[in-house]
């Protein structure tokens, strides 16, 4: 074992010094410590959705647009997708993220458009591709109810977590089992009725972990338009945007640490008060 290699599975006494963290943990986590002065610059955020309208006034430049489809047994990744947004929803999520983290990099991975049939498989392949790219944050305002994808999605969510990709997913507000938001390796988000985009709460009774602004949100929509929308779909990019801010200021944070910072800076916890 070389001197530089970190102990992966155990921690001999002599190795304790070698896992020193790059930054001292502050005595108190405040919002100012967490994201004060941050713009999102340097954070790479992926929106797994219906596409993003590049150049929308509320979105700005989209760094890359990718489309995932499946033909037969083959997964097709079009790395220069020019279809834009097929619904408006992805653009809405992207606009919320950029409103909070204006200088983050945005990548659209479009997993919608090929019809309902096979949409679960496309979602899975899209997520897999996005995780392979090593984005800092993946916003996923969608879920699947198909049991057969649950274990694969679980593995993907854990892979993302351990490679420092934070998956932020919309919780379901209906009595159905759906994935991947229920997994503990992702951040799951529901809605509160407040108006402040930075107002968010930690939920001490999971599986929904955080509540963010999700009611009557003015969002970007297709054709350069704007709409007022409600749904956990719009609460999710608020947390994704805040996560991008935190990671742009503290890029060394692991998903575990990021979750801890988000917890400590929540409105109902010390740092957010």
């Amino acid at each position, binding site marked *: 074992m070389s001197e530089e290699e970190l102990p992966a599975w155990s921690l001999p006494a002599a190795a304790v010094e070698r896992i020193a963290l790059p930054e001292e943990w502050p005595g108190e986590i405040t919002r100012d410590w967490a994201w004060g002065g941050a713009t999102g610059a340097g954070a790479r955020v992926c929106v797994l959705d219906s596409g993003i309208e590049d150049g929308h006034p509320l979105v700005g430049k989209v760094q890359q647009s990718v489309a995932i489809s499946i033909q037969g047994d083959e997964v097709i990744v079009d790395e220069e997708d020019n279809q834009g947004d097929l619904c408006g*929803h992805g653009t809405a999520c992207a606009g919320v993220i950029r409103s909070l983290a204006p200088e983050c990099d945005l990548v659209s991975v479009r997993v919608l458009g090929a019809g*309902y049939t096979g949409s679960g498989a496309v979602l899975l392949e899209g997520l897999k591709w996005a995780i392979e790219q090593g984005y800092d944050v993946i916003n996923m305002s*969608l879920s*699947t109810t198909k049991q057969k994808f649950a274990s694969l999605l679980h593995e993907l969510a854990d892979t993302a977590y351990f490679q420092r990709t934070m998956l932020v997913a919309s919780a379901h507000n209906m009595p159905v089992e759906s994935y991947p938001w229920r997994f503990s390796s992702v951040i799951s988000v529901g809605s509160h009725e407040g108006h402040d985009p930075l107002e968010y709460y930690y939920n001490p009774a999971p599986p929904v972990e955080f509540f963010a602004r999700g009611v009557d949100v003015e969002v970007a929509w297709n*054709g350069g338009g704007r709409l*007022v929308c409600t749904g956990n779909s719009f609460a999710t990019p608020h947390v994704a945007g805040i996560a991008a801010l935190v990671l742009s200021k503290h890029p060394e944070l692991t998903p575990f640490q990021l979750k801890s910072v988000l917890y400590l800076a929540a409105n109902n916890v010390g740092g957010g008060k």
Partner: protein
Amino acid sequence: MSDDLRAAVAAGVLGSEEQFQALLQSIVDVARAIFKAKASSIFLLDEEADELVFEAVAGEGSDSLVGQRFPSSTGIAGFVLISRQPLVIEDVLQDPRFSRETAESTGFVPKGLMAVPLLHEERALGVLEVLDRPQDTRFTLAEMDLLGLFANQAAIALDLLQRARRAQAALAGEGDLAVVARVAETLEQQRDEEDGSRASALRLLAELEKLL
């Protein structure tokens, strides 16, 4: 299928489609009344055609929309179906694509809509929409929960309707389960025959059941 068996199955199925359709209609009627909305509709997903079909409509469009179809991945209803996420939009008119492609083709352009997926077990069966609730009051999460409750009821009704249709198709010798009805009929006819093929067929079916 023997006459007795056919009669028994038919008794369970006949008329049920109309009943389940009446239940769907009642759900959209009540949803429209509770939300004080201009219209409400239920779309059924036709998986074979990959299309959404207007199955029940209350209020504006109720005369002309039932039976109309559109691709399952377009518009707000398509997104809600695929993403499994409910969505509420105020001021739909600001979405030019939505207005042009979906609403105008139905002869009614709503200002706002609530759309919720109809989920039964792990399947997405369709979408419930409520159009043009009064916009003078803010939307609340309590309304979202109410919409979810309606959706749950509508999903159960839609599941029953689909089952009734499949059973009727099987009785009529159509659909992908018609072969099961034909096999049952043949086995029923051979009930008194000494020939060993019936016993072999039953063994094979028992194995098939295990496999499934």
